[in-house]
């Protein structure tokens, strides 16, 4: 950095003033334009109607509807004609209800002020006098006109201005209403509703945070530059790896679906399910033990190796089957347990739903496992192929494989686009992408040295980053709109939206932590001959645990905030109730919900700051 010396040869100060003036003018213009587009206008603010509703709403908000009492009520509806029917003179009339009675004029011109006098009302009590338009004395629509207090004899006088725009031939009413709370307070309906929804809100945030944390943990390593930059593979291996995915996904998915059908036919028999879980689980355990006990030396003989692969395959299939049967078992146990468990029926529901989730995601899981296993096997095969072949042969193999992989990748993209836009024309969705992809693959194979290790890690890193950044830029409230369409209105949609957003933001935060860890321990663990997985487990994870906990707490805090408003777009939680009440103009109830949100958010804020201090 160079230090600028004070400039003694005074610059032409005219220029400086001009520049400053121009800058000032632009600033003023910008602010003026901002006023224009944001509609800054105090005229509306000063309007009387605005002022009235302001007062009404603020007062309602200041009175959250939390407690209810039993009320001893006194209501007197005095009939009034507005205006006086032709030829009739107004006269004092008396209207009774039990002990209490009110004296008032029987008719009057609109806009006049008339006096009501009440007797034998409960002493020292608020009395609300309101105008009830229409000819139904029991109508709930009443325009409050005056609030007065009865004296110690239960008398009151109220001056009431009759409305100007409610003239009618029918009789209308002036209602004098007084009540006293009797008995102990109890929670109001909106307080109880709010409590229900607050619980829902907190658990939405909890589930979203849990899901997000679990899924973003492994993903964060893919988005960490320091871990990915050393991941290199020869093209042969990358191409075979890519080709392995769709094949593996296909076989995995088919196997998963077949097993799903198979175990579906036993769905009724819980004993059989339990036996299956135990037996399959045991076989998986034995098979795994057997494979593991053989150490990590790759067996030399072909038969040995084939045996090992066969055992792994059998173990995978048995594991999927055990999974499905566990799902079955959990579903039947759960649905049987809901009734007898009574208040703890939610545990039964949890078992049932978990079983259902397990069975629903198993084919997808099997597809994923199949894809990853086949691609990693093929990738390893490609690696050893690339080591053994001569440079010329490797190039030939690369040309073929890269073209195939590129073509396949692009056809996949074409099919996806076709799904969205229904193009239909096979030239655009199969042939053109295949040709383009193959050409791309060929180009890559020609341009690179046949056995050179390409930095596939960085490619994965950039793709992961890109997706994460794109997802993160969509607010959870907006995502909820989409998920409401997927799974229906309610908290489940909110959990999905918040969970997805959590994944995107945690992957970013987590991966930044991974990027800032000490490189020394990684180097030391790598030097012992540990593979990549072991290096992550022994050198990376211990270093990132504290910041991960801290960021998870931070995210939990955010998720509670977000889940209070995600209901606005149908995502469940308390926001739903809040918006509903605002639309119904029930500001007392809305105030209850706002209060609840404030309490929960500040409580969570406190908890998370305490926890973070404790663990970091």
């Amino acid at each position, binding site marked *: 950095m160079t230090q600028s010396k004070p400039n003694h040869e005074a610059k032409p100060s005219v220029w400086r003033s001009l520049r400053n003036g121009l800058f000032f003018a632009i600033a003023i213009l910008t602010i003026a334009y901002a006023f224009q587009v944001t509609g800054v206008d105090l005229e509306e603010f000063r309007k009387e109607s605005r002022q009235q509703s302001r007062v009404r709403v603020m007062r309602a908000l200041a009175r959250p509807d939390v407690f209810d009492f039993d009320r001893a009520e006194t209501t007197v509806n005095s009939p009034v004609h507005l205006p006086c029917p032709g030829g009739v003179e107004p006269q004092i009339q008396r209207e009774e209800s039990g002990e209490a009675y009110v004296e008032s004029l029987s008719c009057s011109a609109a806009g006049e002020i008339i006096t009501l006098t009440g007797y034998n009302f409960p002493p020292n009590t608020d009395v609300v006098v309101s105008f009830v338009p229409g000819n139904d004395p029991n109508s709930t629509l009443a325009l409050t006109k005056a609030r007065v207090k009865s004296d110690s004899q239960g008398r009151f006088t109220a001056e009431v201005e009759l409305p100007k725009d409610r003239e009618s031939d029918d009789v209308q009413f002036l209602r004098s209403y007084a009540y006293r709370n009797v008995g102990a307070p109890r929670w109001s309906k909106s307080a109880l509703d709010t409590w229900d929804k607050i619980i829902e809100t907190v658990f939405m945030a909890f589930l979203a945070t849990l899901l997000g944390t679990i899924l973003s943990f492994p993903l964060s390593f893919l988005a960490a530059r320091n871990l990915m930059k050393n991941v290199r593979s020869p093209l042969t291996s990358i191409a075979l790896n890519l080709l392995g995915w769709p094949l593996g996904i296909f076989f995995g998915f088919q196997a998963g679906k077949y097993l799903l059908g198979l175990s579906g036919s036993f769905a009724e028999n819980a004993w059989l399910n339990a036996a299956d879980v135990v037996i399959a689980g045991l076989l998986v355990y034995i098979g795994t033990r057997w494979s*593991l006990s053989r*150490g990590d030396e790759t067996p030399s003989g072909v038969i040995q190796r084939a045996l090992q692969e066969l055992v792994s395959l059998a173990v995978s299939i048995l594991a999927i089957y055990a999974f499905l049967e566990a799902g079955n078992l959990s579903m039947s146990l759960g649905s049987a347990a809901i009734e007898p468990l009574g208040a703890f029926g939610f545990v039964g529901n949890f078992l049932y739903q978990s079983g259902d989730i397990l069975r629903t995601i198993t084919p997808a899981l099997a597809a994923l496992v199949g894809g990853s296993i086949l691609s990693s096997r093929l990738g390893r095969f490609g690696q050893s192929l690339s080591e053994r072949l001569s440079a010329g042969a490797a190039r030939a193999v690369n040309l073929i494989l890269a073209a195939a992989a590129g073509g396949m990748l692009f056809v996949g993209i074409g099919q996806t686009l076709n799904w969205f836009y229904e193009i239909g024309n096979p030239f655009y969705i199969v042939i053109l992408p295949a040709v383009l992809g193959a050409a791309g693959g060929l180009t890559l194979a020609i341009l690179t040295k046949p056995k050179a290790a390409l930095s596939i890690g960085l490619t994965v890193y950039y793709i992961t980053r890109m997706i994460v950044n794109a997802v993160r830029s969509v607010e959870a409230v907006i995502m909820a709109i989409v998920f409401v369409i997927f799974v229906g209105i309610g908290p489940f949609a909110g959990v999905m939206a918040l969970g997805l957003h959590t994944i995107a933001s945690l992957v970013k935060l987590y991966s930044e932590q991974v990027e800032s860890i000490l490189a*020394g*321990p990684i180097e030391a663990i790598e*030097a*012992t001959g*540990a593979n990549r997985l072991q290096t992550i*487990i022994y050198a990376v994870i211990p270093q990132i645990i504290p910041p991960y906990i801290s960021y998870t707490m931070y995210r939990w805090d955010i998720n509670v905030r977000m889940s209070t408003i995600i209901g606005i777009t149908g995502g469940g939680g308390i926001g739903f109730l809040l918006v509903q009440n605002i639309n119904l103009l029930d500001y007392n109830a809305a105030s209850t919900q706002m209060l609840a949100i404030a309490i929960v958010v500040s409580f969570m804020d406190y908890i998370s700051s305490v926890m973070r201090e404790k663990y970091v």
Partner: protein
Amino acid sequence: MLEARNITKVYEGGVQALTDVSFTVPKGQFLAVIGLSGSGKSTLLRCINRLIEPTSGQIFWNGKDITAASPEELRRIRRRIGMVFQSFNLVHRSKVLTNVLAGRLGYTNPAWSLFNRFSKADIEKAHQTLARVDIPDKADYRADELSGGQQQRVGIARALMQDPEIILADEPVASLDPALAHSIMKHLERINKEDGVTVLCSLHFLDLVHKYADRVIALNEGRLVFEGLPGEIDDKKFKEIYGRDAERVG
């Protein structure tokens, strides 16, 4: 026997850290690598187990070309080459025992590592190794609760767990005070003499070289400028290695 042939390393920014370095180390020798800071000692040691990929040149070990090994072969080679670092490079938040056991990772099935499992024999061996480096009672401490000298013993124990044929020690005592330095060097000496492990150790101080090394190579700006016995470093050689202005002390 370890043989380096024409090792050259150019870093990505263009820094030429090593130029055409060749030397051989017979099995069981204690070889010191000396040179000013920045002369390429760390780079040279890391090229041997390919923590840093040499730009050109080859490393032969028992007739096998390490530089041509596939990733899988490299893992198998690395697990017989222990490494000790100037800054110890322990995982601070892990227990001492876990740090020591990490030396067995190359021999452990990665699936077990997912569950942080090591065999009983490995755990037994870890305790014995800690006893061997004189800190048998520190197994359950967190690594960062130990003093510098103790941490370096853990580092040595981790390398020993690998059943190494070679130990690469990159200025293992540069962060320690002189008394501790000798105790650490004595451990390396014992491993060299008793177990017959070849040791390549970069060092700063000539007195340590005289006391522990069988043979010395010296680097200056990435070139090999001396190869011989410690006693052969006279004043003239010294100035060649450390530059004209250097003064010999001790």
